[in-house]
């Protein structure tokens, strides 16, 4: 069972459907017992950093989520789901994140339009990452965000994307994966990323 964490925001339907298409059993939940039993965890991200952290606290799942990730359960964080792994974010005046990956989340300040919205390419920095199986370099994925993560440990960087600056668009640290883009909204190649994640869960 792969759980998709529901913290009361936005569209979960697309991510659930892509996981099901990839052959996964999926449960949408905000119940810590279910999260504890899960073989894989997906945290899709829309919304604001500090409010989402608050929501996760209110739902009493912050600790369980953190423990499961640290225990080695495959985790896929999408967009905000990637950013929440980090130490802190500028969004909401220095809110604390899960601090599982050391680093900061910053707002774009270059002279580009914000949000960074639309299809952009990834530059693969770590070809060995399983999530990128059969994904060509320079492939396009769908982004919709105003903040980006800066990891302290550069070894976690799997891919980067150019938007005035080069920012991190995929990270991996062992069982922990994160994409700044939305694979569930990125057509065929996005589905492939979701499939690759499912294979890591069910291998």
């Amino acid at each position: 069972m792969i759980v998709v964490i529901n913290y009361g925001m936005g569209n979960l339907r697309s991510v659930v459907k892509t996981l099901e298409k990839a052959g996964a059993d999926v449960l949408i939940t905000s119940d810590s017992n279910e999260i504890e039993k899960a073989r894989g965890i997906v945290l899709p991200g829309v919304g604001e950093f500090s409010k989402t952290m608050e929501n996760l606290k209110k739902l009493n799942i912050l600790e369980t989520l953190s423990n499961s990730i640290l225990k080695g359960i495959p985790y896929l964080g999408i967009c905000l789901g990637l950013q929440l792994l980090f130490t802190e974010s500028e969004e909401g005046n220095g809110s604390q994140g899960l601090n599982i990956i050391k680093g900061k989340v910053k707002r774009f300040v270059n002279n580009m339009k914000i949000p960074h919205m639309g299809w952009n390419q990834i530059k693969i920095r770590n070809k060995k990452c399983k999530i990128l199986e059969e994904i060509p370099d320079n492939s396009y994925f769908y982004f919709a965000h105003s903040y980006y993560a800066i990891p302290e440990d550069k070894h976690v960087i799997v891919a980067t994307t150019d938007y005035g600056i080069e920012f991190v668009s995929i990270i991996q640290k062992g069982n922990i994966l994160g994409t700044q883009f939305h694979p569930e909204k990125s057509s065929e190649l996005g589905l492939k990323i979701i499939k690759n994640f499912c294979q890591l869960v069910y291998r």
Partner: protein
Amino acid sequence: MLARRIIPCLDVKDGRVVKGTHFVNLKDAGDPVEIASLYSKEGADEIVFLDITATIENRDIILKIVEKTAEQVFIPLTVGGGIKGIKDITLLLQNGADKVSINTAAVKNPKLIKESAERFGSQCIVVAIDAKKNVVNKNCTWEVYINAGKTPTSIDVIKWAKTVEEMGAGEILLTSIDADGTNQGYDIELTKIVSETVNIPVIASGGAGTPEHIYEVLTIGKADAALTASILHYGKYTIKDIKQYLKNKNIPVRI
């Protein structure tokens, strides 16, 4: 590099697509789900549904369509038309829309932009602006119209564009009422001035008749994306044709 987007817009009335049903290879040419799926396969970067259902009783139909589309089409889906408040937005997002486009309700109550952006994130709040050239009043070169382009507001488009950005809109969908339906090209001047005024993406709409028109609005007009309707619906050009044309002219597109 960030690609420029080509976004087909489908007018949906009581659950059926009312324009652009001239496809030969569809089982049901009026079915929004099937048309959205076809456009996605052809390389559309997003899909917009504009719900032009007249009666309140039939408003739930769009939710079912959104739900079905989100289960089959894995590119971003924006829904506009008749959105009155937070409740409508919540329902659309829960049923599988990624963004909502607000127009009249935003003009009547600009706080709705702020409230919804804070609640759901700016990235899913599109403000649609219908603009018409005003030849009489020199202080208002383009005027904002509401109620599907029927009612003038005496609000200046450029000022309104700044306001919606400040309120937290993630994108502006800018339609030229003058150009809409003409197939003679976008209002380049309008698009350029709005795009230069705000620091959020601008989607140009109204007037596309050829790939060259799209090229013009993305370059001279500085639009981040182009909304297209009849140019695609009547089979004159496919999304592939348009994107290939743009690529040949060195515009970054996702092919």
